[in-house]
C-alpha cells in the first residue's frame, strides 16, 4: 500500500517512525517534519502513507496514541512508543545496520 511517489526506501518506513518516536511522543505532522529535517530533505513522507503506517504499527501493538493539546493549544493525536515497539525498533535497527554494512562492503569491493 505504499505510494510509489514516496521517497522513503521500501520497508524502512516503520523503522523511521519508530526511531523518531523513540525520542518523545509526537503527532503525525511532527513525525513527517522530523524525518524530513533530520534526513535533510532526502526522505519525504506523504500523509496517506504515514497515517496508514501509524495505524498498522498501532494495530501491531508497537505504538499507542492519544488525543491531547499541542504546544500551540490545538488538539492533536500523539503517538508514543510502547515497550514492544522499543524492542521492535532494536530488532529493525540491528537488522538494518547489518544489511547496510553488507551493502557498503559490497559496494567498496566493486569500486
Amino acid at each position: 500500500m505504499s505510494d510509489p511517489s514516496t521517497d522513503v526506501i521500501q520497508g524502512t518506513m516503520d523503522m523511521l517512525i519508530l526511531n523518531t518516536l523513540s525520542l518523545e511522543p509526537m503527532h503525525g505532522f511532527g513525525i513527517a517534519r522530523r524525518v524530513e529535517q533530520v534526513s535533510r530533505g532526502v526522505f519525504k513522507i506523504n500523509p496517506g502513507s504515514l497515517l496508514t503506517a501509524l495505524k498498522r504499527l498501532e494495530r501491531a501493538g508497537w505504538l499507542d496514541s492519544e488525543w491531547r493539546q499541542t504546544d500551540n493549544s490545538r488538539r492533536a493525536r500523539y503517538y508514543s512508543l510502547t515497550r514492544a515497539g522499543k524492542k521492535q525498533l532494536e530488532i529493525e535497527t540491528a537488522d538494518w545496520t547489518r544489511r547496510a554494512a553488507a551493502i557498503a562492503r559490497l559496494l567498496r569491493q566493486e569500486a
Partner: protein
Amino acid sequence: MSFPRQLTRGLRDLFRPTARTRELDEELQQFYDEAAADASSRGLAPDEARRAAQRQLGNPSAAREQVRSFGWENTLREALADLRFATRHLRSNPGFATVAALTLALGIGAATAIFSAVYPVLFQPLPYPHAGRILTVWNTYQGQRFEAAFGTFRELQQRSRSFDAMAIFEPWQPALVTATQPERLQGQAVSAGFFHVLGVAPALGRDFLPADDLVNGPAVVILSDRLWRRQFHADPALLGRSIKLSDTNFTVIGVLPASFEDVLAPSAEIWTTAQYDPSKLTAFNTWAWGDHLRIIARLLPGVPRAQAADELNAIARTPWPQFPRPRWASLRQGLIVDSLQHDLAHTVQPALLAILGAVFLVLAIACVNVLNLVLARSAQRRGEFSMRGALGASRLRILRQLVTESLLLAFLGGSLGIAFALAGIRALVALSPPAMPRLNAVAFHPAAFLFAFSLTALVGLIAGLVPTLHLTRHHLQSGLRQTSARASRGRSFARRALVVSEVALALVLLVSAGLLLHSMKRLLAVDPGFEPSHLLTLQVQSFGHRFDDSSPSPGAGSRARWQFFRQALDAVRQVPGVDQAAFTSLLPLSDAPQVEAVYGARFEGDPPQAGRNVFRYAVSPGYCQAMSIPLRAGRFLDDRDTADAPHVALISESLARARFPHGDALGKRLKVGPDNQPWFTIIGVVGNVRQTSLALDESAAVYIPAQQSWFADSTLSFIVRTRGDAAALAPAAQHAIWSIDPTQPIVRVLTMNRMRDRGESERRFVLTLFETFGLVALLLAAVGIYGVLSGSVVERHREIGVRAALGATRRQLLTLVLGDGMRLTAIGMAIGLLGALAASQALAALLYGTSRLDPATWIAVLALLALVAALACLLPAWRAARINPATTLRAE
C-alpha cells in the same frame, strides 16, 4: 503481532464507521493545520503557507482512501458491500433470482433426498461390527433363493470350517394380552448363535446360551429396547421375571441396546429360541425338515467370502451318510451364498439404481439450466461491466463482485435445497414400499448435500466467470461501443447447445416415466384370478394352550381351533351387509411369507424323488365361491368334506395342465406336504390365481379343506364378500369374531383392493419418482427454451424490426421465432431418443408386460415434449411479432 488488538480495533472500526471517519478527517485536518502553522512560522505569508501545506498534504481524499483501505475489517467491509450490491441486484431481477434459486434447490434437494434414501441400502455398511463378514445362505429352487430346513442348517454347521458362528431365524408372532386389546408382537425365533453372528450383545441381561436352544429347554425371550420401554416402562427389574405370551410363560433374560437395528426383520421387537429337535431329523416328515428357515453366518477373520461359498457348495454336492437328506433339501441345485448387505438390497437394487440414475439426470438438467441462466445474465450485463471497467473498477474488483453474486445465489439455492431435501426424505419414507430394507436408517446425508451443492455452485460460478474473464480481457472498451450485441454469436451458440441438451435429458426422463406408467397400467389391468372389489380381509389368530395338540387327548387342540374359526366364521356371516364369508390359510396378494405358503406336492405315479412346489390353501367350504375363483371342472369343496370324509382337493388349472395335459385330472390323487399323510383325490379344477404379486404368474396351487389338513393353521385370513362398501364393514366383522373369543388378535384388516395396491407399492414408488422427475425435467427444459428464445428476440430486436419494416407479416415473424425454437427442440429430441434407448434398456427389468420400445408411449412422450416446447416458444414469438418497425427504425 498483537492479535487481540487487531481484533478489537478492527471491530471498533467496523461497527463505528462514522466515528472512525470523523477521527481520520480530524487527523488529516490537524496534519494540514500543523503544516500550515509550520510554514507560516518559517515566515511565509498566510495564503502561501496554506498552499505549501496543501502541497505537502497532497490529495486529501486519496490519502483518506489509502488509510481507510488498510486492515482486515476493510476487506470484510468491501465483501459486505459486494453482498449488499448482489442482494440489490437479485432483488431487482426477481424472475432470474427465483428461477435460478428454485432450479438449484430442486436439483440439490432431489439429489440429496434420493441419495440419503438409497445410501443405507446400497452403500452404508450394516450397523454391525465387521458387517462385511456376515453372510446369508439360501437353498436354491429353480435358480432362486429359497428357505432352508433345520436339517440343512445342522449339516452345514457341523461340516463347515469357514465360520465363526452360524445361526437360523424364522418369524415369530406371539400375542401379548394387555389391559386393553390383544396385541400381536413381531418377533423372531432364532438359534442360540443369532446375536453372536450379528456381533450384538444385550445391553441388559444376557444373550441366548446353547442350553436355551434345546428341545423342551427354558422358555426365554430377549426384548428390544423399544418394546421394553413401550410395554414395561423400562423397568430393569423385568429381567428374570416371566411374561405371558400366547398363553405361555417366558422368562425375560435380556434387553437389547437402543441402537440395535435388526435389518433382517425391521419390525421385530422380541426374540426367543427356536428349539429344534435334532433327534427328529431321521424322519423326513417332521417340522425339522420343513424349509422355512433362513441361515446367517459370520466368517472367521481372514477367510474370503468366495472360499466360504466354495466350501458350502462342496458340502452341498457331497452328501454324507450320517446326514440323510429328503428330496426338498437334497441341495442338488447348490446353495446361494451372499453377503448380508447385498442380500438385503438385491430385490430393490435395480429399482434404486434406476432412481439414482434418474436423479442424476435431474441434477444434470439443473446444472445445465443454471449455466444457461447465468450465461444469459452475463450476456445482458456486458454493457454494465464495460461501464464499470471504464469508470475504473479493476478486473479483480468486477470478478469479486461476480463471485459474490454467484455465491449468494448458491447460498439461496442451497438453503432452499436443504428444505427440499428434508421434505423429500420425509415423503420418500412415507411413500416407500414395505419391502424397502433399512428404512429406519434413512437420514439426511450431509455429504450428498455437499456434493450436489458444490457441483451446482461450481457450475454457476464457472458459468458466471468464464465469459466475464473473456470480456474483461478483450472487450472492456469494445463492449461499451456495441451495446446491442451483434457479435455474441459464440455465446448464443453455447446457450443453444445447452437448451438442446436440456431437451435431450428431459426426453430420457419422460420416456422412462412413460414406460413405467404404461407398465403400471398393464399390471393393474392383470386379472388376479378372483374378484377383488367388495372384498374385506382380516387376519385372525388363535393363541392359547387349549389349541395345543400335546394335551392328553391327541387332536383335541386342532378340533378346538377348527371350532373357534368355524364359530367366528358363522358370526361374521350373520353381520348385516355380508354376502359371503370364508377363510383360508393363505391369502392371494398378501405379504404372506413364501415359507408358510409353499409345500412340495407329488402326484400318484410320480417317481419318489419328483416333486413340485405348490401353494397350499387350507380353506373353509365356500372359499372359491366367495373369492369368485371360477370352476373349470368337477365340483367345489363343500360341507360334505369334513375331517372324517375322504380327503379331497382342488387344483389350479396350471397345475392340472402341467401334470395332466390331456385334461384327465379329476379323480387322480396327490400328496401335499409330508409323505405319511393320506392321498388327496382331485375333485375339481379351478382358475389360476396370482398369489404373490400381479406380476408373477406362479399359480400352481392345491386347495384342501382346512379340516383335512395334516396340521391346523394357527392363523387364518377371513375374506368377506360385502354387498356395499367393504371397508365400512370392518368394525362389525371384528366385533363378530371377538364375540366368540375376545383375546384373539385380529390384524391386517384391509380391503382386497388396498391389499393389491400395497403389493404394487414398490412399482408405484419408482413410478411416482420418475413421474416427478420427468415433470421437473419438462418444466426446466421449457424454462430453458423460453429463456433462450426471449434472449434471442431481444438481441435480434433490430433485425426483426427491419424485417417487419420490409414487409414481413406478423405471421411470418411468429413462424420465424417459433421455427427457431422448434428446431432446437427437434435436435434435442433426436439426441434424447438415443439416450432414451439406452435408458430403456436399463429400465427393462422394471417393466411388466410392456416393450421398452412401446410405440404408443414413445409417440405420446414426443408429442408432449413438442407441445410444451411450442408453448414455451409462443410467448417470445408473440413478442417478436408485435415489434413495431417504426420504433426500431427511429432508434437506428
